């Protein structure tokens, strides 16, 4: 599922570009994305119409862009309907076709944290399809290193795409906050330092919000405001801890072992449907953390080797939990402290919004390169 798709569309339009979406056979898995984009009057091409469209418009096409996952044959593919393979294959074919007719077209391939490279066969498949891509974008440095190690791709940029537009950020300062920790979305289990007493479960409230994804643009706009009114005063947001407290080895060793290929890929416990590869905790930029930041809720996350975690901890936008800390008490934080962190979040929008990607696109349009 493509998060914050509306932000990308708005950005492209602000740059004077006309987005055109190519539908693939896995459309069923991304129904909400398509209805949201339709509600923004985005042109959506069916698979059968793509070739004809390219033939007629290849001179006007500036960019070919794809964002999302690559599961490398991992079991999680059953929940996504093989969309990764379809989309990357479509991206590859369209790019090849366009480049034959228009050498100036720029191909951009963005990967989110759901990138798993534990199959040599699938890695070969992917490598063939991305070797001529102009720009590869990733959410985290670790994800880049991961690709470098397994695919030999060393030209990538850490630019986040599936993040909110600056206009959709609702960081508000209050004299008093609700000293609780909100839990959005899924919970993968694994030990955490939170007492159940501290947690506000969004799912228990019975309220549903369309924030990162949604059925229509109108509903997304309403829900974002509604969420701000309902939960804007909650001080903290709970991130994933995965196997943070279960790892006996030091994080540095884990990274090294992963890169050397000597660490099991199936370690994240207690997932409802499928076990996630261990690497996920270190390479992923969790969507829920983006949403917490969008509303000024301070993420409570492990101080691990995930470089996105480290970045927001060091910028004083999130609370980093040391493995020795066994109990996080939200009452220990003053209202002033929370306001200070909210201000830091507001001062570092490029970390979790589409601002950096906007700059990248802008530079490509103006200079032909972002450098």
């Amino acid at each position, binding site marked *: 599922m493509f998060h914050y798709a509306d932000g990308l569309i708005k950005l492209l339009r602000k740059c004077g570009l006309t987005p055109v979406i190519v539908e693939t056979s896995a459309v069923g898995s991304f129904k909400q994305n398509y209805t949201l984009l339709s509600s923004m009057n985005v042109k959506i091409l069916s698979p059968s119409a793509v070739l004809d469209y390219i033939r007629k418009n290849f001179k006007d096409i500036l960019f070919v862009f794809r964002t999302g996952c690559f599961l490398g044959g991992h079991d999680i593919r059953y929940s996504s309907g093989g969309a990764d393979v379809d989309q990357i294959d479509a991206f590859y074919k369209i790019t090849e076709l366009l480049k034959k007719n228009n050498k100036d077209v720029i191909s951009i391939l963005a990967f989110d944290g759901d990138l798993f490279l534990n199959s040599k066969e699938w890695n070969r498949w992917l490598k063939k399809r991305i070797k001529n891509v102009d720009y590869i974008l990733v959410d985290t440095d670790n994800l880049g290193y991961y690709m470098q190690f397994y695919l030999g791709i060393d030209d990538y940029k850490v630019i986040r795409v599936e993040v909110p537009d600056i206009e959709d950020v609702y960081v508000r300062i209050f004299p008093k906050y609700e000293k609780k920790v909100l839990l959005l979305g899924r919970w993968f289990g*694994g*030990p*955490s*330092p*939170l*007492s*159940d*007493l501290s947690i506000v479960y969004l799912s228990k409230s019975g309220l549903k919000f369309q924030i990162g994804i949604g059925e229509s643009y109108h509903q997304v706009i309403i829900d974002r405001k509604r969420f701000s009114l309902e939960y804007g005063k909650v001080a903290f947001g709970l991130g994933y*801890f995965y196997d943070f*407290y*279960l790892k006996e080895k030091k994080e540095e060793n884990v990274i090294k072992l992963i890169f050397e290929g000597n660490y099991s890929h199936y370690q994240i416990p207690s997932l409802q449907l499928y076990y996630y590869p261990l690497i996920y905790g270190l390479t992923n930029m969790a969507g829920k953390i983006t949403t917490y930041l969008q509303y000024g809720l301070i993420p409570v996350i492990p101080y691990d080797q995930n470089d996105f975690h480290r970045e927001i901890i060091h910028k004083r936008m999130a609370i980093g939990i040391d493995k*020795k*800390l*066994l*109990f*996080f*008490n939200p*009452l220990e934080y003053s209202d002033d402290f929370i306001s200070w962190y909210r201000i830091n979040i507001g001062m570092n929008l490029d970390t979790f919004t589409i601002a950096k990607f906007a700059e990248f696109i802008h530079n490509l349009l103006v200079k032909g390169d972002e450098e």
Partner: protein
Amino acid sequence: MKVTKIGYIGASVHRYIDVLAEENVDEFKLIFFDNEVKNAKMLQFVVDKYFPELSSKLSMSEIPWIKFLNYVSSEVAKTPSINDIIKFLPTAFLHFILNHAIETDILWIGDNDFDTSFLFANLLNYFGIRYIFTLKETRYKDYPFELSVLKHAKRIYLPHEKYVDFFQEKYGIDVSSKTSFGDIDWRSKLVKDRIVSKLNVAKLSQTDGKAHVVILSGRAIWKKSEVRSEGRYYYLGIIKRLLEAGFVVHLHTKAIIESLDNPIVHKENPYTELQEKYKNKFFIEDPLDLNDPLNYSVLMRYDYGLVHSGEIPFDETIRKFEEINVPNRFFEYWVANVIPICPKGVLDWMEKSMKNHVIFFEEPDIYEIERKKSITKPFDNYFHNLIRSITEEYLYQI
């Protein structure tokens, strides 16, 4: 073997050096509650400074137990139930505890009704974890967590046999079959032999020919009628009687306050007035931190150490405990070769069982006490005995 203690550290942290010195123990893990960081640091300091060869056996971890209990108390109920504790305990915390509780040869919990270790042991009961329990301070009133510990602990270590009767009377249960005797307040044999015994300190009495009595007490109060401690820390009466009998008295305390109910400090108070009245006979001394064994040199200057104020608690729940209690300071006096003295009528068990080690008196009579001085015998129980008993029972009892 690996020994893990979870819970109270308490005063005289160097007791645990005997655990490190025990040949059966290869590794000692001390998991302490978060209100005892200072004591944990002190233990590490003493080990590193005086017994560095043992430091590799010791590891310590802090757990936010008190902080967590306070949080649950403030959010749910003043006295949280064990179900509340389990329900709201962070999973990382639980994982840590269970990991350490399972991966050890001897899991040791303790020691007192006031330090929340009973509650902690009940948490282990819930998860079916087996442990041994050392117990010292209690009260003669029903405490369900204590009863549960007495029922579930694999072995119990009580200071002496009268505790068994105490619990028989209190709960109607007989714990004798799984009880061994050993006092958690016994002092370190290694510290006594290697450090304190080698301190060359002259008694003050050798210089001035007077009999010097020391009183070690965390607090001293001047309002006797308070509820909280039932006047046990009221020393004005006994100090006056000792002074009138011709003793020189030295009071080492951290705080002189009105009462435990109203812990206010006055620069001028009945104790300072007494000091003014008995110049050169009554001294309010600086607090004495005996966690560093070298500080025993201060205590060793005195001839006698007062074990109890002699104030009899009105409240039965405290009085009945006092009857079987051996106050902590008795062991400090003994380590420093200071002869313990005590008013009769409060510490019943001690009066009957330790008359060779303590001089009990109706009224302080300097000639009578001086006469009995020569017949007191050295007390010969060390923390070493307790840990030896614990480890050998683990090895040889099924």
